[in-house]
């Protein structure tokens, strides 16, 4: 099973197969777990990492969730394929560049387990839209299956032991990916990020730690993992996501009401650029697609077109563009191919009309 099969098969995130929400793109649960009596990956020798990989795959492969799963060994993959998996959020940058990393991705791509990342095991559950509890239930079941199959590093006092003190305890990172063009256009995003930060939540860009907020997409997650139960962590995140979604809805309403024709112009210009540009950088493409997505949300374009816009956002990332071409491309060739694909995809889109406020 190749990486191309993973990238080309339909799933909740790229083809909107699940129930979707306009503002919350996806919900993610991540659990960090380690094996007892084995050095953590950052300090392990390659033979020790290889042993851990075999132990973990041996425990995971028979689980029903991983029937016909995709098994990938990072070092066996060409750089472009590794980069594309990172762009899909199926593996992290750290795993893709590290030694002895492997991943098991469930057939429907909702569950993936990274092996030998910062910790021996990083279990990830991703659902399209806002489905925190559903994602958590899947993670909980997997965690029970894991702890029955493998001796996990756990202490009564500190909980699940991790390589980094920022993950110890529950090892839980719960997050939501939000599309917040309204708050960004209104210039309120810094204020919102500060408020979240002060209340124990981290705000990051589209590709997680260290990435910028391309396309006005932000990831909000809990920072603390020890001294809180999973329920408390999930409830805290939930409360804030509801709050930010409400602020975004209000920001959109205010923009439409106050900007009037200027708002329609913004969207029309974004549409024009995407429909006609011959060279599109990844940043320009994301910024304009974000506005098109907003247009679908507020009735300026048919809502059913949102899935196409989302797919362009994902497939316009540098490694995806090059994989489509089948060869490594320099920046200009990449920008030309991205522009061509975007023009073709948007060819049958109707012109944006005035917003419909509900």
């Amino acid at each position, binding site marked *: 099973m190749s990486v191309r099969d993973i990238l080309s098969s339909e799933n909740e995130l790229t083809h909107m197969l699940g129930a979707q929400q306009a503002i919350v793109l996806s919900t993610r649960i991540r659990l960090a777990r380690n094996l007892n*009596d084995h050095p953590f990956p950052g300090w392990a020798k390659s033979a020790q990492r290889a042993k851990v990989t075999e132990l973990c795959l041996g425990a995971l492969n028979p689980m029903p969730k991983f029937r016909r799963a995709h098994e990938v060994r990072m070092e066996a993959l060409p750089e472009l394929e590794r980069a594309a998996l990172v762009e899909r959020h199926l593996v992290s940058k750290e795993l893709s560049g590290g030694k002895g990393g492997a991943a098991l991705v469930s057939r429907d791509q909702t569950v993936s387990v990274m092996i030998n990342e910062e910790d021996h095991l990083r279990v990830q559950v991703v659902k399209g839209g806002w489905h925190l509890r559903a994602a958590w239930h899947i993670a909980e079941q997997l965690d029970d299956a894991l*702890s029955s199959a493998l001796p996990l590093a*756990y202490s009564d*006092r500190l909980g699940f032991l991790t*390589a980094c003190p920022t993950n*110890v305890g529950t090892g839980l990172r719960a997050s939501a990916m939000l599309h917040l063009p309204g708050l960004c256009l209104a210039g309120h995003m810094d204020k919102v990020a500060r408020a979240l930060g002060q209340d124990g939540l981290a705000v990051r860009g589209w590709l997680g730690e260290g990435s910028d907020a391309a396309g006005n997409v932000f990831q909000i997650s809990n920072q603390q993992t020890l001294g*809180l*139960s999973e329920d408390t962590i999930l*409830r805290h995140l939930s409360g804030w996501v509801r709050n930010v979604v409400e602020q975004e809805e209000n920001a959109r309403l205010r923009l439409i009401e106050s900007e009037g024709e200027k708002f329609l112009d913004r969207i029309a210009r974004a549409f024009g650029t995407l429909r006609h540009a011959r060279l599109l950088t990844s940043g320009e493409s994301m910024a304009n697609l974000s506005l098109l997505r907003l247009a679908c949300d507020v009735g300026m374009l048919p809502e059913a077109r949102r899935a196409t816009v989302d797919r362009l956002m994902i497939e316009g990332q540098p490694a995806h563009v090059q994989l489509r071409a089948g060869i490594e491309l320099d920046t200009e060739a990449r920008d030309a191919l991205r522009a061509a694909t975007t023009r073709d995809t948007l060819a049958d889109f109707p012109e944006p009309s005035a917003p419909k406020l509900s």
Partner: protein
Amino acid sequence: MNDADFRKKGRLGCSACWTALLPALEPLLGKIQCGVHHLGRSPSGVTYSPEQAKMRLDAARREMVEAVQSEDYESAARLRDLIRNLEGQIA
């Protein structure tokens, strides 16, 4: 590994390092985390010491109040079962 090794990489070496370095790590945990005691789930089959069970019971009661206040009845129901279970263990 020792404290200096940890400071170099910011990562612990294995589960035993946690026991060895805990006194040195406690101030850091106090700063970056919400406490220095685990209140989350445990691997299946692990039972709590009486001291742990008591601490979890106190936390679960606090959470139950919060869950009811925020009208999160799914969590409240789960917490009610957990509280009963922990009370049983302590008794």
